[in-house]
């Protein structure tokens, strides 16, 4: 196989084939990003419908059953199918560049991870057209989810099982990549914070997703094959589901928020033109948060009746997380302290993030106070709390990083002016929506209600909250417009787009060639790009090897085929309880396709290919003109 020429014009079919078979982390990053934006838009639209329904009391805009489907799909989609892939997009696109690698450790698995996620997500969304979406909340507590009629929950279980496998595979891939693929000199304590948080959050995936897999499997066999894990009349126990779900579910929050912390730890030093304050304590805090994240799952279950001792222990453990998180916040503030702050759009998001996230964090400590949580649990207070954390922490990170990394990912730029407008519309809308929800909760409004009676003191705040939601939607539309407009912007074609880049990815001349680095870089210290610039190195990079042949992995269609096999098998399982005759054959055929693809992968040698020196030079000239990357 020959090298992929970047600027060569290709037909639509060839481009499509290229994306279906690609193992290039940059392309997969882009695919994750767009898939994430798609599901983010869908889930956002669902939220908008719910807020319109709750704008006035006793509204009949949406029926009770549909509302439960929307709230379930909103939560599930946002966490599993929007936030996760969006962050995976940045991880894929940026982490190998940050550590000086030409690709990830397992490019094939990287592609498999994407297709599993994507087809699992598609499968789950088909439920809207095939008899109703899941309606037991994203937590899908066992008694209700076993009781729920129709196939909604089956779509949830099977879809998450498939996409969860993809997430797990990607997590393993990132861990190995960061352990083994770092360029010479890129020691652990020189790794950028985003790489660190990717490593820790992937480790959390590693330990958190198996319990979810197990829980989903129990639910699957309970609903479809007559098992009795959660049927208390047969000796089962629904609390097992709650434990398994939250052993996964709580770390999941950190899986998402740690990379967001990492992204801000990249953005803030660049636009403060100052080294990240307390790097080693930031790393330590990240590890500590990851570790504690596994010790606190039962704080979601204070009202379940675990007894005072368990509640007290988990309350204290949960409060402990505030300490490393606080360390991070102070480190960020001390980074801008004494710096030279340039307020670009990414920095604007970072600056908006700090107060929003602190607000979400302190309400978290309040909820950790178990006896107080008896009041706050499952009220609108918790809705406000986790949206402050997720929107204030994760979504701002994603939006900010889109602006920040757009030049590297696309060699194009997003408009700053429109970005500023987007930020303010979204940010004000966000606080308008969720700040008052704290008080709605305290005033006694339970969460997950499709409507509410008038005159309980909730009318005004709900109305204002819905207005805020509309503003957020406008903000997202503006962002999408910005993305579309960026197609027309001139290519960047240079290094260090923001001028104050610090980590290795900014040393790369844009557009990034498919092999990332024509020579593997030598990392001589923390913040290598900054370091080289300080020493007057125009190339911003020192090399660890002479120009030579580059070894790259082959593209493959097998990941897609494996995923399609599981996708087909899922339909068989889904209709199994209906007693249709074709369900078992479909399961067998689907799994057979997957297994055959796996065996093919196993017995067919795949050595990758070499890009020879001449080809490298030719590619560089095509990308950067005569003289290549000099």
């Amino acid at each position, binding site marked *: 196989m020959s090298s992929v020429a970047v600027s060569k014009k290709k037909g639509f079919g060839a481009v499509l084939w290229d994306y279906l078979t690609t193992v290039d982390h940059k392309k997969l990053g882009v695919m994750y990003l767009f898939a994430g934006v798609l599901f983010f838009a869908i889930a956002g639209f669902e939220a908008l419908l719910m807020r319109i329904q709750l704008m006035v009391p006793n509204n009949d805009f949406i029926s009770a059953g549909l509302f439960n489907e929307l709230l379930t799909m909103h939560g599930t989609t946002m966490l599993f199918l929007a936030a996760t892939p969006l962050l995976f997009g940045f991880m894929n696109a940026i982490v190998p560049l940050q550590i000086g690698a030409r690709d990830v450790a397992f490019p094939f698995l990287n592609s498999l991870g994407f297709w599993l996620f994507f087809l699992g997500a598609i499968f789950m969304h088909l439920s809207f057209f095939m008899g109703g979406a899941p*309606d037991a909340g994203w937590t899908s507590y066992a008694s209700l989810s076993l009781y729920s009629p129709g196939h909604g929950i089956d779509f949830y279980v099977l879809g998450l099982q498939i996409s969860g496998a993809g997430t797990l595979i990607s997590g393993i891939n990132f861990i190995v990549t960061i352990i083994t693929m770092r360029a010479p000199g890129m020691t652990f304590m020189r790794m950028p914070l985003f790489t660190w948080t990717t490593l820790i959050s992937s480790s959390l995936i590693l330990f958190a997703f198996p319990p979810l897999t197990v829980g989903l499997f129990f639910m699957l066999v309970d609903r479809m094959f007559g098992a009795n894990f959660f049927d208390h009349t047969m000796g089962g126990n629904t609390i097992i589901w709650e434990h398994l779900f939250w052993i996964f579910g709580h770390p999941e929050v950190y899986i998402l928020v740690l990379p967001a912390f990492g992204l801000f730890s990249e953005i803030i030093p660049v636009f403060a033109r100052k080294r990240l304050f307390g790097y080693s304590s930031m790393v330590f805090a990240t590890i500590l948060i990851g570790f504690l994240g596994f010790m606190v799952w039962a704080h979601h279950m204070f*009202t379940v009746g675990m007894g005072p001792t368990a509640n007290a222990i988990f309350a204290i453990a949960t409060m402990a997380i505030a300490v490393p998180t606080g360390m991070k916040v*102070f480190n960020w503030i001390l980074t801008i302290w004494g710096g030279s*702050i340039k307020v670009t759009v990414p920095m604007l998001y970072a600056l908006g993030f700090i107060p929003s996230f602190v607000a979400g964090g302190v309400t978290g400590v309040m909820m950790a106070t178990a006896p107080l949580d008896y009041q706050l649990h*499952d009220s609108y207070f918790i809705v406000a709390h986790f949206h402050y954390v997720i929107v204030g922490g994760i979504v701002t990170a994603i939006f900010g990083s889109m602006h920040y990394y757009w030049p590297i990912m696309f060699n194009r730029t997003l408009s700053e002016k429109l970005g500023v407008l987007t930020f303010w519309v979204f940010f004000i809308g966000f606080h308008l929506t969720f700040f008052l929800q704290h008080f709605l909760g305290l*005033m006694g409004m339970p969460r997950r209600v499709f409507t509410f009676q008038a005159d309980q003191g909730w009318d005004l705040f709900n109305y204002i909250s819905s207005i805020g939601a509309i503003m957020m939607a406008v903000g997202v539309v503006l962002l999408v417009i910005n993305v579309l407009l960026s197609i027309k912007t001139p290519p960047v074609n240079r290094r260090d787009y923001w001028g104050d880049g610090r980590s290795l990815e900014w040393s790369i001349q844009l557009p990034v060639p498919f092999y990332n680095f024509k020579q593997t870089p030598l990392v001589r210290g923390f913040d290598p790009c900054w370091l080289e610039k300080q020493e007057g190195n125009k190339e911003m990079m020192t090399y660890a090897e002479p120009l030579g042949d580059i070894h790259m992995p082959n593209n493959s269609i097998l990941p897609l085929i494996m995923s399609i096999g599981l996708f087909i098998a899922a339909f068989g399982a889904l209709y199994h309880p209906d007693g249709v005759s074709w369900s078992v054959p479909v399961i067998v055929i689907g799994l057979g396709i997957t297994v055959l693809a796996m065996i093919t992968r196993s017995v067919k040698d795949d050595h990758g290919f070499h890009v020879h020196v001449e080809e490298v030079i030719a590619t560089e000239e095509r990308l950067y003109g005569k003289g290549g990357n000099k």
Partner: protein
Amino acid sequence: MMKGLKKWRLFSLLAVITVFLSACSGEDYISTLKPAGEVGQDQFDLLIFSISIMTLVVVVVSFLYLYAFAKFRRSKLGEKHMPKQVEGSHTLEIIWAVIPIVLLLILSVPTILSTYKFADVKAMDEVDEEGNKTALTVNVTAKLYWWEFEYPEQGIVTAQELVVPTGERVYFNLKAADVKHSFWIPAVGGKMDNNVENVNKFWLEFGKESEGLKDGVFYGKCAELCGPSHALMDFKVKTVERAEFDAWVASMQATEGQTASVDSTDLGEATFAQSCLGCHAVSGVGSTGAMGPNLATFADRNRVAGILEHNKENLESWIANPEEYKPGNLMTGKYSELSPEEISAVADYIMSLSVEK
């Protein structure tokens, strides 16, 4: 335990918060911010206490942050300005690790004490010299989408409207009959789940009579998603003085044996006996486990089906088509279709069921 906190309230910061909270603290029959009972009050105090600590944190962080943001702008410092590249500071890092730890330790003391206090249900089993239970226990069974309240010692059962005495700890056994629910009376105290496989126990103390409230009752909610009509799974709590409560119990016990007869000359009663009695008892004496809410005190309640205004028209509409008002309820389709006259007569009959009048 909360006495120690009293002096905290002296801080002006707290006063500001309290004023702010009272400005938007909701209705006194449903808001956790207007606590009416020991548990709710303790939780409210804990709320104020933790909010004060947290406000302190937010204020410090915001101050540092805004100051840094205002002072170190590149537009002021000039494009060329090159900040000193600081690695970090161990002293500072230790300070901002230790201060939160101290704050959290302070917060954890009332947390642990209250956790054990609220879980203390030993008094449920205490008996006096004659072997009678000293404390009032109510068995709460949550069902799709209504609540059954059984008073096991008194041998009575009611639904949708909990009647309890004020000024004493009332103990609850919580269980769900179908799917998981959660029992929550916001103004009186924090919730606990009704699980399907085990009984949860906790207590509440009702600090004030519900007489003066807007509807004369506190509002109760289901706080765990339980299906389409989760939002409509309300109940009401009537709190009365002990003497009045005892009188209520006596009149409930007096309904023993009360039933509806198919042979009744009253069309309402006959129809009721024909179509409704299978699920709905009209005697307040009994135990838990009914298919539908006990109706012995229906006329004394203030909502139809927990949500609709309490009048005959709403009751008729409810009987005619429950699905319209509570989607997914288990009453729909359980009885043969009734003519408008029958519905009207049944409604009259049900509206006549009372122990208080």
